[in-house]
């Protein structure tokens, strides 16, 4: 037995804790990424890539599958063949595993699935935590063990595996997504010896002995009939009966070994408690803190923590419950609409009835869905409810339900924060290093002092300029505070601009310290603070410090990373450690974290530490509020009512306060709301030089956030233009008398500079000056705002007069996708925007889950918008795996509606007017003019139908819009198209139906953090391919072309924008399935995205990404349908790939493998080119009409 004192203390999050154990006690690990469980798979993959062995000295095999369904299947097979096998998942992923879970349990197979429990997609997707997923799996026959804290995650990962082996019952080991999976806390690390002691060798051998083997053949997985299926199903009963005791025995053995004693149900609180809450998960930690507080003040309350939820042991439950209990509130972190109550509540009721315990009042309620805050105050609210003579049953706590009045009241001022605990809040922006710095700080405090430490990190839902809030607690007493800090004694603002966006000092307690990263020094900062901030500093008597972190970062070579600097200031001011000790500890951590990245990196961080201290100043706080400005309203006054009442509250961070009545009942939200959320995240924005501009439209095309717009208009519209508004003569042959303006939306730009990089017009006298150049935003913000507002009022160009195959013309079309939350410099959004420009006014979009569904549909605002006629894309996200089918369904409905409308037209012909009917039925809608004419006819039809009162006329009125051509777009990333959705995609391609599929190919699962997909190129490093992807990228385009009936295009906007525009037009025009595979540069490729378009060019020039179009229509015309549109390689592959960290990383971590894979990748390029070239020159229809290049 290892004595507890010899175990090291580590500061890690729940995912790492689970993976740490799981990787060491398994042999085969099948994974698939899904938030928030992905890091468990990532750790496992990385450790195996680094050849870290398990406790038996062999390196576990880790394999990524095409879906969670696939992972479960592979796992099932591995178990059947006798391996110790595990997986990690959450949410929809777990749902996809359910079919296999029944099998695994039915076959009495030992395994543990580690689950970062997460909400299920219902009215909306949510990545956050609750128990909806695990509760959906409770009928599978898996045992279910809940961990409430990071330490428990590590402990239960081991206990569950040991118990599973003995019980032969498979386990779901679950913990709360984000709150536990991502909380960083100090825990005692189990040792390999601990694991060896818990993992019984005999049981492992027995597991192997049960495996399928041709050396002792058996058959498993038979089909059974009514005569015996039932009996066979009952044959497992004894194993489930034995399971609770086996788990308790494992817990006892673990306690002997490690010293921490757990029980199936752990009671905490007054031994003579009268009111008890029952719950599981991180909420139990919160409840424990509340119970400790309340019992200390004499209240007879208690908490029953449920650890083993399945098999539910009535005996152990009853035994754990104090006999004194009079009333019980059971809290479920899930919702089952239509059920009598939620699962835990139902079980408690049943248990009491079965145990014949009467006279106790039991109520049940829901809390914490989708990581909704659950605080000690809410726990007290529940206890208070239990004290009432007629407490509310089926309640909710944590929200305000003003519709069905389920919610309980609570007093948010009730606080159980432990005195002596330091509570620090840090506000920053994603990628400024704030979160990383705080993770480091927590590590330092956790590992260098005796303090307990906890860190939790909250992000908003944007991928560019996301606001991050770090919640850090540490102190001498154990921390159970699994909730956000609302009362802080240290507040740091790492981004000055956030002061005008949010009321961050609300959470500062009197006398707290406020650290501000400020471009203004201690003397002048005061007058740059909003009134509210000044008032709070004065009223709360805050100690106020400033540092110009960005200047220090610049001076010390840190660029825009202020992490180390702000971290040093925190330690210097907070006094957690003596200053010298703190500095030494920070430097030690820097060595540990960055040492492997090279000495230069360590040096600059050291310099940043040293410089930070000499630039940190305390501000002498004046006693008067002097500012003439205040925090900006979240949305402008002109925003529509819903935006004002709902969206604005969410933007302001007050979404928690919205009542149920404020929410749409079915998940339907208005579009076009992103325009109201002015985020001002760009330090510099593009400025147009009208003299130099050649009006090519390239900047408009590439702008990922649609902030650069062009219009050609009649000069009369310039009347009343702001003084700074720019215009010049339009350079169009047909619009010579008209004006041209290129306008930037100053508050929506993210400052990516793609537009500047792509601008071909350079000044003759100074080549660095182009027709579009970056300039600091603040000085021009107001003037450009006025220009932008004026620009929006200028009428859009008539679509009918434009030649849409010309890039220049296409970029005069209004984008119906704007200001999304996508990453700055995103390579996907320009394609989506183009699609909306060309077809958005008649588009239905089915969007696979992924980046495009997050920046496309994550609250608070929606980027899809409408034109002057109120038309625009109608968008929905179903799931990750089903998107092709989802889009096909839309097509089927539209086609059916169109067909029925046409039938009705024929039936009602003479009543409506034969000529109109003929026009409607025979309309040619191939052009914008044709569509406009049809819209006119439909308008007329509606007018005529309005006067008719037959059922058929009313039917036709409701379907008349279906007579206008609709464009169905199925949009998603490569994770969907190549992997999880490929089966469906393939089926839809084969369907022959007129759908357009847009694959935004970033070559990894970007949204979940860059895991390998089958689109990942050979030799690239990705998560789940830490050792470099060994196999070549799947040629999805060629597979699709193989059907012969599918329009296929492989495009790269940065290489040929004209080709891209052409492909979109042809794909949409093709009356059958079309697929466009679009090269999308991505932050997960590891280079400065400002050069994204140039890198696309290099991809094509190296032959890595040949452009082609396969148009079945050409075959009908006797031509070769395969058109190879790019030239043979002109640069070596390495000139393309080694611009990107995803490739160069491998040259650093495994140079020999990098060389081997590069050589193979070069071969891939050669052989593919040969094949394409051959195809392009194949005779069409037997005649040698050749391909064209």
């Amino acid at each position, binding site marked *: 037995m290892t004595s507890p004192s010899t175990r090291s203390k580590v500061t890690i999050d729940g995912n790492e804790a689970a993976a740490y154990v799981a990787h060491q006690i398994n042999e085969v690990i099948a994974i698939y990424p899904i938030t928030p469980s992905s890091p468990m798979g*990532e750790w496992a993959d990385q450790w195996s890539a680094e050849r870290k062995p398990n406790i038996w000295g062999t390196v576990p095999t880790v394999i990524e599958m095409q879906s969670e369904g696939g992972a479960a299947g592979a796992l099932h097979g591995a178990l059947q063949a006798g391996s110790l096998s595990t997986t990690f998942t959450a949410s929809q992923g777990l749902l996809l595993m359910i079919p296999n879970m029944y099998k695994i349990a039915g076959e009495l197979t030992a395994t543990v699935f580690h689950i970062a429990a997460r909400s299920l997609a219902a009215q909306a997707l949510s990545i956050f935590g609750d128990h909806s997923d695990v509760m959906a799996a409770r009928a599978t026959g898996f045992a279910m063990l809940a961990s409430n804290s990071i330490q428990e995650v590590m402990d239960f990962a081991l206990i569950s595996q040991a118990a599973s082996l003995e019980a032969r019952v498979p386990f779901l080991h679950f913990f709360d997504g984000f709150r536990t999976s991502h909380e960083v806390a100090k825990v005692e690390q189990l040792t390999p010896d601990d694991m060896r002691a818990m993992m019984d060798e005999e049981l492992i051998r027995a597991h192997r002995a049960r495996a399928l083997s041709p050396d002792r053949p058996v058959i498993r997985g038979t089909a059974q009939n009514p005569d015996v299926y039932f009996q066979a199903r009952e044959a497992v009963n004894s194993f489930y009966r034995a399971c609770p005791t086996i788990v308790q025995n494992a817990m006892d053995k673990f306690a002997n070994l490690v010293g921490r004693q757990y029980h199936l149900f752990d009671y905490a609180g007054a031994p003579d408690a009268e009111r008890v809450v029952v719950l599981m998960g991180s909420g139990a930690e919160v409840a424990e803190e509340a119970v400790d507080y309340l019992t200390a003040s004499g209240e007879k309350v208690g908490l029953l923590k449920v650890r083993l939820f399945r098999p539910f042991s009535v005996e152990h439950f009853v035994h754990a419950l104090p006999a004194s209990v009079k009333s019980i509130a059971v809290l479920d972190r899930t919702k089952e609409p239509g059920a009598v109550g939620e699962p835990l509540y139902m079980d408690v009721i049943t248990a009491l009835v079965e145990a014949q315990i009467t006279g106790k009042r039991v109520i049940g309620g829901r809390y914490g869905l989708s990581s909704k805050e659950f605080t000690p105050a809410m726990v007290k609210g529940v206890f208070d409810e239990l004290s009432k003579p007629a407490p509310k049953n089926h309640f909710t706590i944590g929200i305000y339900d003003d519709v069905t009045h389920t919610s309980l009241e609570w007093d948010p001022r009730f606080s159980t924060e432990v005195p002596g605990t330091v509570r620090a809040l840090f506000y920053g922006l994603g990628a400024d290093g704030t979160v990383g710095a705080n993770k480091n700080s927590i590590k330092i405090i956790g590992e260098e002092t005796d303090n307990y430490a906890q860190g939790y*990190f909250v*992000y908003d839902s944007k*991928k560019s300029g996301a606001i991050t809030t770090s919640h850090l607690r540490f102190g001498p007493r154990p921390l159970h505070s699994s909730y956000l800090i609302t009362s802080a004694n240290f507040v740091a603002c790492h981004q000055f601009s956030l002061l005008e966006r949010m009321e961050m000092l609300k959470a500062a307690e009197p006398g707290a310290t406020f650290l501000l990263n400020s471009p203004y020094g201690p003397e002048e900062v005061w007058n740059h603070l909003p009134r509210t901030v000044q008032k709070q500093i004065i009223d709360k008597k805050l100690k106020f410090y400033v540092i110009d972190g960005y200047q220090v970062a610049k001076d010390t070579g840190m660029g825009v990373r202020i992490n180390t600097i702000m971290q040093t200031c925190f330690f210097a001011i907070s006094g957690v450690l003596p200053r010298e000790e703190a500095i030494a500890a920070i430097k030690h951590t820097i060595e540990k974290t960055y040492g*492997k990245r090279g000495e230069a990196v360590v040096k600059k961080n050291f310099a940043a530490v040293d410089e930070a201290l000499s630039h940190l100043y305390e501000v002498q706080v004046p006693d008067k509020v002097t500012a003439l400005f205040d925090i900006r309203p979240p949305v402008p006054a002109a925003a529509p009512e819903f935006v004002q009442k709902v969206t604005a509250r969410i933007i302001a961070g007050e979404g928690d306060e919205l009542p149920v009545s404020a929410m749409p009942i079915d998940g339907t939200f208005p579009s076009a709301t992103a325009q109201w959320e002015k985020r001002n995240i760009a330090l510099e924005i593009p400025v147009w030089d009208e003299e130099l501009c050649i009006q090519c439209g390239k900047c408009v095309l590439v702008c990922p956030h649609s902030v650069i717009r062009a219009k050609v208009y009649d000069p009369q519209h310039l009347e009343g233009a702001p003084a700074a508004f720019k215009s010049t003569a339009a350079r169009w042959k047909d619009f010579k008398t008209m004006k041209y303006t290129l306008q930037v939306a100053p508050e929506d730009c993210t400052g990516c500079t793609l537009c500047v990089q792509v601008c071909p017009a350079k000044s003759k006298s100074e080549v660095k000056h182009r027709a579009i150049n970056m300039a600091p935003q603040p000085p021009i913000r107001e003037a450009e705002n006025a220009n932008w507002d004026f620009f929006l009022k200028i009428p859009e160009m008539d679509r009918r007069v434009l030649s849409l195959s010309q890039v220049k013309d296409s970029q005069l079309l209004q984008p119906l996708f704007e200001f999304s939350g996508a990453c700055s410099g995103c390579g996907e959004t320009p394609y989506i925007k183009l699609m909306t420009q060309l077809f958005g006014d008649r588009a239905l979009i089915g969007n696979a889950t992924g980046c495009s569904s997050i920046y496309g549909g994550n609250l608070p605002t929606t980027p899809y918008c409408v034109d002057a006629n109120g038309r625009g894309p109608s968008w929905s996200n179903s799931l990750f795996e089903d998107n092709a089918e989802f889009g096909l369904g839309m097509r089927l409905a539209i086609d059916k509606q169109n067909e029925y409308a046409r039938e009705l037209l024929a039936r009602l012909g003479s009543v409506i007017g034969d000529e109109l009917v003929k026009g409607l039925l025979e309309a040619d809608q191939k052009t914008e003019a044709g569509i406009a004419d049809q819209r006119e006819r439909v308008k007329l039809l509606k007018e005529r139908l309005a006067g008719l009162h037959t059922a058929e006329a009313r039917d036709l009125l409701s379907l008349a819009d279906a007579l206008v051509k609709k464009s169905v777009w199925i949009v998603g990333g490569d994770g969907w198209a190549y992997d999880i959705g490929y089966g469906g995609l393939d089926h839809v391609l084969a369907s022959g139906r007129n759908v357009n599929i847009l694959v935004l190919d970033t070559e990894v699962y970007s949204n979940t953090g860059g895991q390998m997909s089958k689109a990942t190129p050979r030799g690239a490093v990705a998560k789940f391919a830490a050792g470099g992807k060994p196999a070549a990228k799947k040629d999805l385009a060629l597979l699709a072309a193989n059907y012969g009936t599918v329009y296929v295009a492989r495009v790269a906007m940065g290489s040929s924008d004209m080709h891209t525009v052409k492909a979109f037009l042809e794909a949409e025009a093709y009356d059958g399935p079309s697929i466009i595979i679009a090269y999308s540069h991505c932050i997960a490729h590891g280079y400065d995205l400002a050069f994204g378009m140039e890198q696309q060019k290099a991809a094509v020039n190296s032959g890595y990404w040949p452009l082609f179009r396969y148009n079945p229509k050409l075959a009908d015309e006797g031509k070769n349908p395969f058109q190879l549109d790019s030239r043979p390689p002109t640069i070596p592959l390495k000139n393309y790939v080694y611009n990107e960290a995803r490739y160069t990383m491998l040259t650093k971590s495994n140079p020999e493998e990098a060389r081997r894979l590069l050589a193979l990748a070069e071969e891939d390029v050669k052989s593919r080119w040969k094949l394409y070239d051959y195809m392009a020159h194949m005779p069409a229809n037997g005649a040698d009409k050749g391909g064209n290049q």
Partner: protein
Amino acid sequence: MIDLSKTIDLSTSYLGLKLKNPLVASASPLCEDIGNIRRMEDAGAAAVVLHSLFEEQIEIESQELDRFLTEGTELSAEAVTHFPDMTGYNLGPRGYLDHIRRAKEAVRIPIIASLNGVSIGGWLQYARQMEQAGADALELNIFYVPVDPELTGEAVEQKYVDLVREVKGSVKIPVAVKLGPYFSSMANMAKRLDAAGADGLVLFNRFYQPDFDLEALEVVPNLTLSGPHEMLLRLHWIAVLYGNIRADLGLTGGCHAATDVVKAMMAGAKVAMLTSALLKRGISYLETLVTELLIWMSEHEYDSIRQMQGSMSRNAVPQPSAFERANYMKVLSSYAVR
């Protein structure tokens, strides 16, 4: 047939190393491959100078790795990172040092490591590591482009001298310095480097001179191979310096034929370095050069390389002024007369 190699002594010494002939394969991408280094030895190279380890490159690689590992981090709750951050990376000089080791194992001829540094700390550390890895000598490839108008020539020169002194003080193996011709007083500079302890001077570095792409209006890298005309500058300064400094002289740049080697020796070089010639004609061209050198020497009745070394240096010719300014004037005027 007479075996000229038996009768003519091609051996020379350079940096205290005994070399079988004056042909040294100089730093080029060819040296990145151990097979090539073996082929060089087989073809007759007396020593090999490895491609340069660029301190700046090491620093950039490390900064870039750090940048891209951290740049995409903490963007959103779902994508806290975008890359696996491995426990270790093959960063810094590790790969280069391994290369020295492998080259030493592969051949018997001396291996001269080449170091291009930017900071005193870096130079010293890498120089020591190269020594430990088994390099027979070091070549400091000083490639410094002083673009700061505030930086005086004096300060630049002092930087060179300090670098050489520091490196010399920290390693026991001989150190050569490869430098460019752009000094106000080349001879004085050579003397100062000599005094700082340089065991050899390699004349001259060919500087990277970027070109313009007139269509794209961009500055583009431009690297051309040296031509024989470039040798004259080298000959000139070797002839001037020979005998005036203690350090050995090596000629690099423009040496393409056996007669070029002869000229280099006569000017006073101990070795002639070959880069462009090998890149253009292949490693086996070394064999041709050795043969042609022997034939030339035989025809002109030279017994040994040592015999001719410095024979046409400034001190050895009847009219030293041929190497001075007047000569330059004469050439120009004679050119005008034509």
